[in-house]
């Protein structure tokens, strides 16, 4: 299990390949990547991501350990960036490896739902008009109910 909280960009292909090559006994590897999306009306200059350094690693580790136990994962990887990101840049990725695909897919979805509202990150959208903190959606909180 590797959890990286970093400002630096990452190479999705290289990370996915290294992860897949490093797992023994897995029949399924699922990866998900979150990308900075432009605003519907355009004009996004950057996304600033703030986090809580002392808590972030611990919170993600707790979520990851639960996923590993619940779905019997062979391995998992979480990379989450912070700092100033441009539209189109990857914000984060999750990879899960399991014996079968159902567990790998479900565990990845579980990780994403929990990272969204339980990992201490906050996003601010920067435009020429200024900055707007992204509000959490009720749907994100509701998504936790299914687990």
């Amino acid at each position, binding site marked *: 299990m590797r959890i990286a909280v970093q400002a630096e960009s990452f190479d999705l292909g290289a990370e996915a390949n290294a992860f897949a090559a490093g797992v023994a006994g897995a029949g399924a590897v699922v990866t998900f990547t979150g990308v900075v999306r432009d605003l519907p009306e355009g004009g996004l200059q950057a996304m600033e991501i703030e986090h809580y350094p002392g808590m972030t690693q611990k919170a993600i580790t707790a979520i990851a350990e639960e996923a590993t136990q619940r779905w019997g994962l062979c391995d998992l990887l979480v990379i989450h960036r912070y700092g100033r990101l441009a539209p189109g840049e990857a914000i984060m990725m999750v990879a899960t490896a399991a014996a079968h695909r159902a567990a790998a897919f479900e565990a990845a979805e579980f990780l994403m739902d929990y990272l969204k509202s339980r*990992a201490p990150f906050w996003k601010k959208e920067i435009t020429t008009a200024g900055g707007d903190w992204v509000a959490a959606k009720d749907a994100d909180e509701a998504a936790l109910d299914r687990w």
Partner: protein
Amino acid sequence: MQVLYFAWVRERIGVPREAVETEAATVADLVADLIAREDRYAAAFADLSALRVALDQELAEFDAPLAGVREVAFFPPMTGG
């Protein structure tokens, strides 16, 4: 204790962290104590339903006791992923 603020809570209060001397027994008491000090705290804590709190880096409730707590953090609902 150390009190930390993130995102718009940090912006409204004007500092990312500060040492606070308080007799507050619970998180809610601490909030009331801060609100009584200066307007910028009142602005940040106007709607507690829009806020989350962590005690020593674990999510907690506003009625949680502060005994033994070294670090309190206030922030809006998280938007990771």
